[in-house]
């Protein structure tokens, strides 16, 4: 079995999901992938413990920190 090289460049994505429309989206985990397509496939395969009504992914680099732990 020959292994191909792993992706040269990857991004980190945060995964959010909710079980019911009335629920808020909550952070359920993270995936690492080279592009948005694979990140969606990985998020769906990895975080399938519930029958989510909605799941979204956000590239970590798109997140703007407003306040951080330890800040006053």
């Amino acid at each position, binding site marked *: 079995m020959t*292994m191909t090289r*792993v*992706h040269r460049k990857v991004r980190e994505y945060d995964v959010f999901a909710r079980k019911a429309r009335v629920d808020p989206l909550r952070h359920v985990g993270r995936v690492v992938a080279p592009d948005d397509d694979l990140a969606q496939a*990985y998020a769906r*395969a*990895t975080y399938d413990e519930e029958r989510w009504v909605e799941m979204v992914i956000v590239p970590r680099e798109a997140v703007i920190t407003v306040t951080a732990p330890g800040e006053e």
Partner: protein
Amino acid sequence: MSKPVPGGVSDIVLSLADCKQLLGLRYAEWCSATPTLEADIAAAAMGLDDLGHSRVLAGCLSELGSDPRGPERETEPGAYRNVAFLDQPWTEWNQFVAANAILDTAFTVMIESLVEGPVEVLRTRLRKMLAEERYHFLHGRSWLNEIGPDPAVDQAWTEAVEWLGPEGGELRKRLAAKLERPEPKLSVDWSRWDPIRRRSRPGAIDGHTFDMLRGLEERRYGVTHAEATAGG
């Protein structure tokens, strides 16, 4: 059954069920051998999806009129109507990617046409598969871009075209459009094409897989009646 079933639909549905069963097994064989942990998990998830799809498709056969499954399926591996690409376990990751991107998508194109078609049981029961197949497609297309041109891709595409059939021109166009690339130059000898198995290459699934399909492999690891009686 609300409408008459067009001739040949049962044969296509059984071939689709067989292909999906084999595809699910082949995905599962790779669930600890892909290049990344995430792809391992995706392989397992896609394998479970396709095994489930196979069961749903096989469950539709009784409502399509005559069930084309005969007793020869218990003794003859060649009775399975799968594409040749699924006959043997894959030895290269590129084969996994080619099957995932090209063949799985070709099966989806056929399912779409069945969902859009006149047969009520297929219109209703197959729709959910398309939602799950979206993730298979995203996975396959991304990895296809990663591996680039490869003989496995051309082989899978040739077999996909054969499986869609000599009158599958529109479906071939849809496959290429989904994959966002032109169909490669393919050499298909339709004079050797088997309309039941929807392939031109002879051969059949390997013995180990055939035993697994019939539940014989599991029995090797199960507790025998004699052992159970002695232990009790």
